[in-house]
């Protein structure tokens, strides 16, 4: 409470000072920076958000609980930063916390959801994936962005993971069943499925409107990794697989894209790779190695600066660390964050 008051006062004073000599009124303490999603440990409710000031380099830990005097929950799977409002998707806590993007003050909590995973915004609607359970079929919930009410739900596949909206279609990776669901909103939400390899995860949309899909790879009957991770390029005009890039390993199905939507970034072990979206073959040389990391867990690219952020989970045994690299892969610096940094949001 005291901290909250202090922060409010500080904020007020900034507003007053700034009003005099500048037209642009700061919207809040976290207006210009990078959010690190620290997922936290399962059942400990210690997921958190670390803020990194883009120009100031200031680091604030646990900003959600600092501002709102309540823990964020577990496992914070992802965040979506929209104009004014930011959506924090907390998987095991069965909720989405909606906060002011600039002050991080809690606006509302969407709690009638089951194992939510990822969210995106298109027009005035939010699209939120939910696993529902480990046995039920997953779904996409269409969210009213101002009230947080769920307006409709669309069944997709088992383990509904990442979601993107391109045109009138919703694309969802179904992590448990190795497919992608494509829902045509213009055609009564009719859904089709594309078969991919095992463990489809995060996606990004490139400058051509094509979707890049990561697939972790599967497991053999004797539990050993099947070493069949892959990266797909899906043409959203035809809704067919345009290119398949197969790896001979399993990897963490995470991906990021550069500010001009020309280049996708992914990592295998501690090696971070960059791939030009128009190239027909993958580079065998990594852009850089995060050699000081214990266990690379998440990746993000600042759409303003092109700086690459890599999260090291430190195997969840310690607080995580974030390493920063410029677009050429030159190491900039690193800083300590919360537990299990798995992704980033940019304001």
């Amino acid at each position: 409470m005291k901290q909250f008051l202090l922060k409010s006062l500080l904020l007020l004073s900034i507003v007053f000072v700034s009003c005099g000599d500048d037209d642009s009124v700061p919207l809040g303490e976290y207006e210009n920076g990078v959010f690190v999603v620290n997922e936290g440990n399962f059942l400990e409710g210690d997921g958190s958000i670390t803020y990194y000031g883009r120009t100031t380099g200031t680091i604030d830990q646990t900003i959600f609980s600092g501002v709102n005097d309540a823990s964020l929950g577990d496992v914070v799977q992802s965040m979506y930063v929209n104009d004014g409002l930011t959506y924090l998707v907390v998987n095991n806590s069965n909720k989405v916390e909606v906060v002011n993007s600039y002050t991080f003050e809690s606006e509302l909590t969407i709690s009638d959801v089951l194992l939510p995973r990822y969210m995106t915004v298109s027009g005035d609607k939010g699209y939120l994936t939910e696993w529902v359970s480990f046995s039920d079929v997953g779904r996409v919930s269409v969210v009213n962005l101002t009230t947080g009410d769920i307006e409709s739900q669309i069944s997709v596949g088992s383990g509904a993971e990442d979601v993107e909206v391109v045109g009138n279609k919703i694309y969802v990776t179904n992590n448990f069943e190795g497919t992608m669901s494509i829902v045509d909103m213009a055609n009564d939400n009719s859904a089709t499925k594309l078969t991919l390899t095992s463990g489809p995860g995060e996606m990004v949309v490139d400058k051509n409107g094509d979707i890049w899909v990561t697939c972790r790879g599967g497991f053999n009957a004797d539990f050993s990794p099947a070493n069949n991770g892959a990266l797909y390029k899906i043409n959203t005009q035809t809704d067919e697989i345009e290119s398949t890039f197969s790896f001979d390993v399993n990897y963490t199905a995470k991906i990021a894209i550069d500010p001009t939507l020309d280049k996708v970034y992914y990592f295998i072990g501690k090696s971070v790779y960059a791939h030009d979206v128009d190239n027909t073959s993958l580079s065998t040389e990594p852009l850089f190695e995060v050699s000081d990391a214990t266990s690379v867990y998440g990746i993000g690219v600042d759409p303003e600066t092109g700086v690459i952020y890599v999260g090291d989970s430190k195997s969840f045994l310690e607080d995580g660390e974030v390493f920063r690299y410029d677009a050429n892969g030159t190491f900039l610096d690193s800083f300590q964050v919360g537990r299990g940094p798995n992704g980033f949001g940019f304001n």
Partner: protein
Amino acid sequence: MKTMNFMVMYLCAFWLSAQQDSTIYLEEVEILGSPLTEYSAGTSISSIQLGPSASVDGIGNETASYFRLYGNGQLSTLTLRGTSSSHTNVIWNGMPTNSPTLGQTDFSIWPAFLTDKLIVQKGSTSSLFGSGSIGGNVIIENSLIRKDSLATLYSSIGSFGQQNYGGKFQVNITPNLISETRIFHGAIENDFPYELRRETIRQPNARVERLGVSQKFGLRSEKHYLFSEVAFARNNRQIQPTVTSSSRDQLLTENLRAVLSNEVFFNNSSLYTSIGMINESTLYNRSSRTESTQFAGSVFYHFSVGKYIKSKSGINSLLARSKSGNYRGRQTQNEFHLFSSWTIQPSNRLKLTLNLREAFHEENTVFVPSFGGEWSILDTSAELKLKGQVSKGYRVPTFNDRFWQPGGNPDLNAETSKSYELGFDLGFLKQRNGSLSITLFQSDVDEWIQWVPVDGVWSPFNLRKVESKGLEASSNFQFKISELDFSWSGAYEFTLSSDESFDGDNQLPYVPKHSLYNSISVTNRAGEARIRSNYTGERFTTLSNSEQGTIDDFVLVDLLLSKHFKTTLASFDVGFSINNLFDTYYENLINTAMPGRNYLIELTIKH
């Protein structure tokens, strides 16, 4: 309606006891063989009595040892001497009972009402009890005692919708054949209030319902003792979510166990055989079921030479099976042990124990010896006893470690440990109305299994190398002022536990450096008043020991009052307790709310 239930129950009780009014009161005679702690000279052993409403995790309230509680009445595990919860072995009627799938025991499952005597043994004793006894043991000894009260009825009512009922009935079928039946049912809504975001909210989704039933038979003759127990526990609970979480999970656990043992006595020797079985089934969210069954067999020969030498040697055999949607089909693990234990007592002042155990597990063989001793230096008006032990320990990987799909690692090694302890017991007066014990310990655990994510999949590896050391002190005093007996007991534990495979000597997660227990009571013939307090030092959630991963320390104070009176028909105990007297908000596990001040009223009737 509730009152009616009470009335009916108590009337039944009187009726039941009236049926047995011709029985002659017998003195309390214990009819069981040598205690399990006979061969562990040098370790720290404390016997704990728990109130009937508690689960076995109530041990945490009566010692300085730290239980990790995932909420009130929720999953509860015990770590001893800075190790992990799977390094505390739980022994029931001589059988190791830790879950083969998780490697640990959830102490909240078993109602304390089903147990007579709980022993917490700190120190490594794999040489006596096999896999998992690295930090220590909890020993549940259910000896049959020929009692003078043949029926006990218990009921209690408390805050947040708590209601407990229990009954114990002993029937002396013949002078040598005793039957004892116990039944317990407890439930709590657990909708306790706490402050969140400047509002008072009530804890959602934390209801717990517990059922426990046990049946024992003992048949004793001059040359022979046959014992059997069947016990069943059912725990149906909503899984208490962390604060701000709206998860609605639930878990149903059913545990059925049975043991049959037979001891044949010869001159200065005996032959003991036992077989036992444990079946545990857990159902998560009504859909995901895991089932495991353990079989244990034991044969050993026990002999003594005067009071100088005692020995038991024999074999243990363990077979565990488990089936889960997370494994590929049914999985099996086998263990076979050869052991020999010796106690040598050359004089009244010196006792030495040597334990040797060779354990064969899958393709691995582990040899775990231990050597301990107790030496009375002084035996005059004060008694001073030095004690110490060196031992090796081990723990085999669990089914989840080996077979979980995906990520399970079938190539894991067993964890191994070396432990040392040295201490003394000081008895202040010949009448023994005061004592002080201090023990220093060190354990080095190698190949400690840790789950870590690799390319998005969690897998266990023999990763950690942990050094744990510390000090334990306990003391008690009794004195009398006219008709009042005053009693104080206290315990303190100081534990430093660090992972040498990481930088620095930061404290392991969820190992408090300091913990303290205090109990002061005043007793007279009519009743007792007691104040109990527990201090738990700050704990960290990760090895970074950073501020964001720190859980604040806390003190809990409980006030317990009981009144005793007797009529010709029965004796009555009425209890009233206030737990968390100062209404402290505290977290045992990070972000998990615990109840503030709460009350319990209890009634026990014995006949």
